[in-house]
C-alpha cells in the first residue's frame, strides 16, 4: 500500500513539497494537497499592485495546474489535526488519514490585535489590501505618509523598506513628492533588521529624503486624531498610514495544539521535523525558526522535507538538511535593487543596488509560474 502524505497548504512551500515528494516516491507514495481556496497566490506581487506597476491578474493561478498529475487536490479547510490518530479533519466534514503530514499553512494576519489598526491604516499584505492602498495613493493629495511595523515576525522582512523606496519614486512621478514626507518607523535603531543590509540602504534613505523613526514598535492607532503610537511611548502623526499587520500561525495549528503561543510550529532547524511528532514536518511561514518568513525560505525548505520524508519511507538516510538558506531581492526604487542572501552561518553581504537586480527580480516574477512550483529552480 502506498504511503499517504498530506500537505496542508497550496502556497510556494506546499506546492513544491507535494510535487517533489510525489516525484521522489513514485508509486510508493500518494500525495494529497489540502487547500481552502484551490488558488495559488504569488504574494510578492502585492507590492507592485500597490504602486500601480502590475495588476492583480498575474498573481493567482489554479493550484491544480501547478501540481503533478499524480498529486491529489482537496479544496477544503483543514480544521483539526490529530497526531495520535494521524488524521486531518476537514471543514465540510469527513477526515483524511496520513502517514506523513507537511504543514505548509503559512501565516495569517491578525489585524484585530492592534487597537485602531483596521480603521486607521492600510497594508499590502493581501490583494484586497494592496488594491485599497493603491486607490488611496492615487487620490492622495500630498502629506505625511508613515510606514510602520505592527508585529513581528512578519512576512517578507524587506517589504517595508522596499515600499518606502518605491513610494518615493511613485510620489515623484505623481508630482507630489515636494509636498509629502515619508517616514519609515522601524522596530530597531536601523532601517533593516540585518545590520549589513541596513548599512547599505540607510544612506539611500537619507539621499531620498526618507525619514527614519527608530525603536518604534507600534502599539495603537488613533484614527480620529491620525496618530500612531509606539510601545516606547512615541507618537507619529500621519495623513496616510501603512502598517505591516501582526502575523500568527494558521488557526488549524493553534486549534490542534501543534504550535507555540503564536501558532508557529516548533521544528528541528535542520530536518524541519516537528519537535514532538515524528510524522509531522513544517515549512515556510508556518515554522518557528528564527529566519525570514518568505517564499524563498519555503522554496529552499521544500526539497529538504521531501528528502526527509522519502528517506524515512525508504529506510535510508536523508540527503538534505536545511542550512537556513534564504535569498531575497530588495527593490530600492528608480529601477534599482539589491539582494539579500544568507544562511544560518553566513550573514548577507548585499551588493550595491543596480538595475541588474531590479530586472532579475522582474524576470523571476514572470518566470515564477513555470519554474518554482515545479522544482525547476534549485
Amino acid at each position, binding site marked *: 500500500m502506498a504511503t499517504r502524505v498530506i500537505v496542508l497548504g497550496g502556497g510556494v512551500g506546499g506546492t513544491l513539497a507535494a510535487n517533489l515528494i510525489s516525484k521522489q516516491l513514485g508509486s510508493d507514495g500518494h500525495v494529497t494537497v489540502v487547500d481552502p481556496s484551490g488558488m495559488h497566490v504569488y504574494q510578492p506581487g502585492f507590492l507592485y499592485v500597490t504602486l500601480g506597476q502590475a495588476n492583480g491578474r498575474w498573481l493567482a493561478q489554479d493550484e491544480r495546474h501547478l501540481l503533478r498529475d499524480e498529486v491529489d487536490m482537496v479544496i477544503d479547510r483543514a480544521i483539526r489535526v490529530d497526531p495520535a490518530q494521524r488524521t486531518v479533519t476537514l471543514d465540510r466534514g469527513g477526515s483524511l488519514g496520513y502517514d506523513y503530514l507537511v504543514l505548509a499553512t503559512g501565516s495569517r494576519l491578525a489585524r484585530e490585535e492592534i487597537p485602531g489598526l483596521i480603521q486607521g491604516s492600510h497594508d499590502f499584505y493581501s490583494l484586497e489590501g494592496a488594491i485599497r492602498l493603491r486607490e488611496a495613493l492615487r487620490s492622495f493629495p500630498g502629506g505625511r505618509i508613515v510606514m510602520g511595523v505592527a508585529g*513581528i*515576525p512578519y512576512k517578507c522582512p524587506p517589504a517595508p523598506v522596499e515600499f518606502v523606496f518605491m513610494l518615493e519614486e511613485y510620489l515623484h512621478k505623481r508630482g507630489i513628492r515636494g509636498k509629502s514626507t515619508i517616514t519609515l518607523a522601524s*522596530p*530597531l*535603531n536601523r532601517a533593516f*533588521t540585518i*545590520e549589513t543590509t541596513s548599512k547599505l540602504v540607510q544612506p539611500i534613505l537619507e539621499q531620498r529624503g526618507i525619514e527614519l523613526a527608530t*525603536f518604534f514598535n507600534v502599539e495603537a492607532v488613533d484614527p480620529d486624531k491620525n496618530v500612531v503610537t509606539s*510601545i516606547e511611548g512615541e507618537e507619529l502623526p500621519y495623513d496616510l498610514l501603512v502598517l505591516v499587520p501582526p502575523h500568527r500561525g494558521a488557526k488549524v495549528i493553534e486549534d490542534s495544539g501543534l504550535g507555540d503561543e503564536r501558532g508557529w510550529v516548533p521544528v528541528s532547524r535542520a530536518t524541519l521535523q516537528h519537535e514532538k511528532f515524528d510524522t509531522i514536518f513544517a515549512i515556510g511561514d508556518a515554522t518557528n525558526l528564527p529566519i525570514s518568513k518568505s517564499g524563498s525560505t519555503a522554496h529552499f525548505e521544500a526539497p529538504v522535507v521531501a528528502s526527509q520524508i522519502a528517506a524515512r519511507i525508504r529506510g535510508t538516510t536523508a540527503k538534505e538538511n536545511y542550512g537556513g538558506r534564504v535569498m531575497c531581492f530588495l527593490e530600492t526604487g528608480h529601477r534599482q535593487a539589491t539582494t539579500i542572501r544568507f544562511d544560518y552561518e553566513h550573514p548577507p553581504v548585499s551588493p550595491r543596488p543596480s538595475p541588474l537586480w531590479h530586472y532579475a527580480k522582474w524576470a523571476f516574477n514572470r518566470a515564477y509560474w513555470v519554474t518554482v512550483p515545479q522544482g525547476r529552480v534549485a
Partner: protein
Amino acid sequence: MATELIARRLDVKGFNCPIPIVKTAKEMKQMTSGELIEVLATDPGSVPDFAAWSKTTGNPIVEQSQDGGIYRFVLKKR
C-alpha cells in the same frame, strides 16, 4: 545585588533581532518605574541593540554579562 530586586524575567534565547527588543519593550510597558527586568538572549546582535535601545528610551542597563553563548541584561524601568 540587583538580582534580588528583579521583578520580571524574560527568556528570548533562540530569537534573533528585533524580537528580543520588541518582547522586552512590551514587557517593560507593563512595569512600574524603578522595577528591574532580567533578559536572557543568545543573539550576539542583542548587545549593541540593547545598548542603543536603552540609550534611546532612557531605560538604563544596570547589569550586563555573558556566559558562554548566553547574554544577560538587567534593565531598569525609567
